[in-house]
């Protein structure tokens, strides 16, 4: 085949075939061996990469699902990192101690009121860095309810504590204002349930009755990742 073409042209075509991935494994290995010692061939190959990459100019960008970045970073760096925006810094500074696994709510400690799920699908400990606010959460997948247990701290006078779900890089979504009682069960809307997996819970300081805007308006007091049991 190459006999039909002048050598330079043959290499040009060969570099193009290599860039397209058309060569057999053997021919590709030969080409790679030549690349090491032949700058001209490297130049031809690089030109093809540039030219062919332009074929992707008309492909519309598509945002990958937000959780993917966390998964990539977990694979590379060993733990999730880098939630978007206002939560990022806080989450980064969270002590490992806050990542309490397998939080158990003993039913015998809860004689009345909402009952902690015996077999929660997800748990989280939403905690302030200094421990001034600690809320344990456990999700009952069957009931679609999040059981919350405020173990330390409370809303300031005339203010409310609002619980937020942050899924990936999405904006925080309110899960509701924490009631005055330490323990409560919050109904999770059906469309949010799937987002609990891998999400983060946060609690912000809001006016009585909750954020008027649908987004956190006050200080973020506590955060905690949701753990799959």
């Amino acid at each position: 085949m190459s006999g039909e073409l002048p050598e330079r042209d043959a290499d040009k075509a060969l570099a193009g075939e290599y860039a397209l991935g058309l060569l057999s494994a053997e021919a590709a290995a030969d080409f790679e061996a030549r690349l090491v010692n032949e700058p001209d061939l490297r130049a031809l190959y690089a030109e093809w990469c540039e030219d062919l990459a332009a074929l992707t100019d008309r492909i519309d960008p598509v945002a990958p699902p937000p959780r993917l970045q966390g998964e990539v970073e977990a694979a590379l760096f060993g733990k999730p990192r880098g939630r978007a925006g206002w939560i990022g810094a806080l989450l980064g500074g969270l002590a490992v101690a806050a990542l309490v696994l397998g939080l158990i709510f003993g039913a015998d400690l809860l004689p009345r009121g909402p009952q902690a799920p015996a077999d929660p699908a997800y748990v989280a400990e939403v905690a302030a860095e200094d421990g001034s606010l600690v809320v344990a959460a456990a999700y009952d997948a069957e009931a679609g309810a999040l059981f919350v247990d405020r173990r330390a701290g409370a809303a300031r006078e005339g203010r409310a504590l609002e619980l937020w779900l942050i899924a990936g890089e999405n904006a925080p979504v309110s899960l509701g204002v924490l009631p005055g009682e330490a323990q409560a069960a919050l109904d999770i809307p059906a469309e949010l349930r799937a987002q609990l997996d891998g999400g983060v819970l946060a609690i912000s300081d809001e006016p009585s009755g909750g954020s008027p805007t649908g987004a956190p308006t006050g200080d973020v007091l506590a955060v905690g990742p949701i753990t799959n049991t």
Partner: protein
Amino acid sequence: MATRDEIETLLAACTLGDKRAFGALYSATSAKLFGICLRVLDNRAEAEEVLHDVYVKIWHNAGRYQANGLSPMTWLITIARNAAVDRLRKRRAPAVSMEQAEARPDPGPGPEAQAVAASEAERLSACFDELDEGHAQAVRGAYLDGETYADLAARFEVPLNTMRTWLRRSLLKLKECLSR
């Protein structure tokens, strides 16, 4: 989309183990690369897996970018396209393409980098127009659909050697047009 210089700076920071820079690089480029993976694979789950692997590869090989002479987006696009095509071929014919997948490395060192001009796609498109329609489709099919010589020979109903002759001539025509 971040500028060429910004992406280069982020890649350089990645070689120093800067995780924040990696996050920024991901934010700036993942939609483009995911679009490419989706276009090649036409399957969301597979495209997500490939994109995951692509960014792992980018982190581990960022140091090779500086020496390879490609523009930073071309380097990233080439990694994503090759990974997606490898995956596609694995789906089509497991045994053969595994070898090819492993045989093909990331782009090696090259000449002085060339900026990809905004008009690059138009220039390329005009040159494709100079090819016979079937030949243009064959080159596109190889790049974007991962078609092999065997696939192309079957599609155009010609012997494999004829297909290869066609395609090599088309590549040279294309190159000649692009260097005008």
